[in-house]
C-alpha cells in the first residue's frame, strides 16, 4: 500500500524534472556535436549578476553561447533573478560543487562574493572575471579580468569630445555618489582639461524626466558640449537641446547604447555613444579559459572591451547588430 501511494507523486516529480531538463538537452547535444571537429570538451560555468530581464545581459549571454559553440565546450550560464549577492554566491557554490573545468564570474560586490570565489580558487578551478571587478579580481586569485574600466572610458570620451572641438562641457550625472558614475565624469574631466577645455558636473534626478530636462536646460549656460552617463540621461538632454534650439551648436555624447540613442546618432543629433561591447565580455572568457586549459596561457591584467565608439558612420551597422542581440 505504501508503495502504491508513493508511485504517483514519484511519477509527477520525475515528469516535472524531465520536462524542465528537456530544454537543455538539445542545446548540449548541439554543442557536443560541434565538438567533433573543434578542440572543446570542457565544462565551463558562468555566473553573473545580470538579471534575466536586462537587455544588456542578454547580449552577454549571446556572447557566451556563441563562444561555447565556437570552442565546442559545454557552458552553463546562471544568474540570480534579481540583483542579490546572497543568491549569486549560492549559485557560485553550486557551480563549484559541479567541479567545472573553468569558472567565469562578475564581481559587483567583492566582499560578499569573496568566500565563494576563494572556494573555487582553492579547489583549483581557473577563474576569470568579467564586467565588474577590475579593481578586486587580483586579490581574490582570479586569473584575469575582461571589461571596461570606468575612468579610462570617461577619459576616451573626453578625448573624442575635445577632438570634436568642444571647449566647455557639462557632465550630466544622474547618480551622484555611485562610484562607477563618478569615475566616468572624473575621467572625462581629466582628458578635457588636458586638451585645454573645462568641465562642470551637473547632478540631475532622472526619476522626473521633465525636471531633469529643465535642470539640464538651466545648467547649460554657455557650454558647447554635453556628456551624459547613460541613455536615461541622454534622452532628457536631447529634449533640452531641442527645446532650446541648440541642437547644432551644443554637441551631445553619451555612455552606453539604446535603440533611441542609436537612432539619434544615425540622425546626426548625438555625436557618439560609448559602447563597452559586452558581447566580448561573454565571448572572451570562454576562449581564454579554453586556451588556458590547453596550453596554460592567459592574458595578464585587465582586458579592455571598451570604450568603443558608435558614430554616424557605423550607427546603421550597430542598429542591425543590436537587433540580433550582439551590440
Amino acid at each position, binding site marked *: 500500500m505504501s508503495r502504491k501511494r508513493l508511485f504517483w507523486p514519484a511519477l509527477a*516529480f520525475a515528469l*516535472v524534472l524531465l520536462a524542465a531538463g528537456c530544454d537543455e538537452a538539445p542545446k548540449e547535444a548541439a554543442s557536443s556535436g560541434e565538438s567533433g571537429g573543434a578542440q572543446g570538451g570542457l565544462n565551463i560555468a558562468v555566473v553573473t549578476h545580470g538579471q*534575466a530581464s536586462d537587455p544588456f545581459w542578454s547580449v552577454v549571454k549571446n556572447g557566451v553561447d556563441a563562444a561555447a559553440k565556437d570552442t565546442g565546450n559545454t557552458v552553463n550560464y*546562471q544568474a540570480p533573478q534579481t540583483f542579490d549577492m546572497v543568491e549569486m554566491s549560492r549559485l557560485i557554490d553550486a557551480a563549484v560543487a*559541479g567541479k567545472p573545468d573553468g569558472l567565469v564570474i562578475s564581481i559587483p*560586490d567583492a566582499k560578499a562574493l569573496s*568566500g565563494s570565489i576563494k572556494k573555487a580558487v582553492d579547489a583549483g578551478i581557473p577563474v576569470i572575471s568579467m564586467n565588474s571587478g577590475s579593481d578586486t579580481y587580483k586579490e581574490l586569485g582570479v586569473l584575469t579580468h575582461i571589461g571596461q574600466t570606468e575612468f579610462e572610458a570617461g577619459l576616451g570620451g573626453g578625448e573624442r569630445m575635445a577632438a570634436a572641438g568642444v571647449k566647455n562641457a557639462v557632465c550630466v550625472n544622474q547618480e551622484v555618489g555611485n562610484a562607477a558614475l563618478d569615475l566616468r565624469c572624473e575621467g572625462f574631466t581629466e582628458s578635457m582639461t588636458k586638451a585645454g577645455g573645462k568641465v562642470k558636473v551637473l547632478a540631475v534626478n532622472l526619476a522626473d524626466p521633465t525636471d531633469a530636462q529643465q535642470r539640464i536646460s538651466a545648467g547649460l549656460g554657455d557650454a558647447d558640449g554635453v556628456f551624459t552617463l547613460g541613455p536615461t540621461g541622454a534622452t532628457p538632454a536631447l529634449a533640452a537641446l531641442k527645446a532650446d534650439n541648440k541642437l547644432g551648436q551644443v554637441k551631445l555624447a553619451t555612455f552606453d547604447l539604446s535603440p533611441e540613442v542609436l537612432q539619434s546618432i544615425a540622425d546626426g543629433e548625438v555625436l557618439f555613444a560609448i559602447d563597452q561591447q559586452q558581447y566580448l565580455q561573454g565571448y572572451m572568457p570562454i576562449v581564454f579559459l579554453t586556451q588556458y586549459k590547453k596550453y596554460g596561457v592567459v592574458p595578464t591584467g585587465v582586458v579592455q572591451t571598451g570604450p568603443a565608439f558608435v558614430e554616424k558612420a557605423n550607427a546603421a551597422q550597430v542598429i542591425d547588430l543590436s537587433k540580433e542581440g550582439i551590440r
Partner: protein
Amino acid sequence: MAVTEAPPGPQADERVRRAGLLRRLLARPELGAVAGAILVWVFFALVAGNRGFLTLDGTASYLAVASELGILAVAVSLLMIAGEFDLSIGSIIGASGMVIAMLNIEYGWPLWAAIVMAIAFSLVAGFLNGLVVVWTRLPSFIVTLASLFIFRGLTIGITRLVTGRTQLGGIDTDAPVVSWLFGGEIGRFSVSIVWWLALAALATWVLLRTRVGNWIFGAGGAPDASRNLGVPVNRLKIGLFMTTAFSACLVAILQVVNFGGADVLRGTGQEFQAIIAVVIGGTLLTGGYGSAIGAVFGALIFGMVRQGIVITGVNADWFQVFLGAMLIVAVLVNNYIRKKAAEAKR
C-alpha cells in the same frame, strides 16, 4: 487535533500501540515531505551524482540554502498551525540586515550591539504585526501583506535618506563571539545548519511536549473552543508573530555576518518560499494540523532542488517552475495522506 500527535513514548498509550507501524506513520503530517525529500535526493543522485551533487561541497551547498529557509519555515510552521500567516518576514530580513549595517557602518556601533538592536527591532515589528491582527481581527494575510510593503518601503526610504545608497558593504565581521556564533563553518558546513536543526528541535519539543504546543494546535484548530477553555489565544498569536519576525532577523544576521554587507532588497520573496516549505511539510493552510519536522524537510527539498538544478547544469530560471509544480504535488499528496490517516484513526 493535537491529541493524536503524541509520539509513542516508553509508556505509550495502549490505543496507540495497537495501531500498526504503517498506520502510525500515516498519521504523521511530515510523511509526505520525508518521502519527497528522499525522492528528490535519489533523483539528483542519479542525474547529477557524477557532477558533484553527492560530494561534500555539493551537500554543503544545498544544506546552506535549506538551513536559512528552514530557520524561517520552522517558525512559520508554528504560526500556520495556529492559523495565521506572516507575509512580512522577507521584508523584515531586509530591514534587520539594514539596521545592523547602518548602525555599524554609519554610526560606528560595534557589531554585537547592532545585532542586539536588530533583534529588538524585529521583535517590535513582530509584536506590531500580531497586535494589529488581534485588534482589527482582519485576516493576517492582509495585515502582513500590508506590513510586507511598509517594512520594505521604510527600509529603502530610510537607507537612501541616510546613506544615499541601497547597499551597504564592508562590515568588519571579525568580531570574536559574533563570527563564531553566526559566521563559522563546521568543516565545510555553514553554522546556519546548526541553528536550523536546533530551532527545529526546540519547536518540535514545544509543539509536542508543552502546554504552549497544545495551545498552538487548539488556537488553529478551534479558536473559539480554545478561548472558552481559557487559552490566551491573543497573547499566543502575538508571541508567534514575534517568533517569525525573530527568525527573519536571525537569517538577516547570518547573511550580514557571512557576506559582510546588507542590501535593501534582501529576503524578497522569502515569505512565500517559507510558506511553500511549510505546506510541503504537511501543515494545513487552515491551521490546526502540521509539524515543525515537516517544515525542516520542506526546506530540505527546497534547498536540494534549488542547488541540484544548478549542479545538473539546467538554467536556474527553471527553478520556479519546479517550485510551483512541487507545491501542487505536495498538497495533493498531503490531502491524500490525510484522508487515509482519517480512515486509519477509525
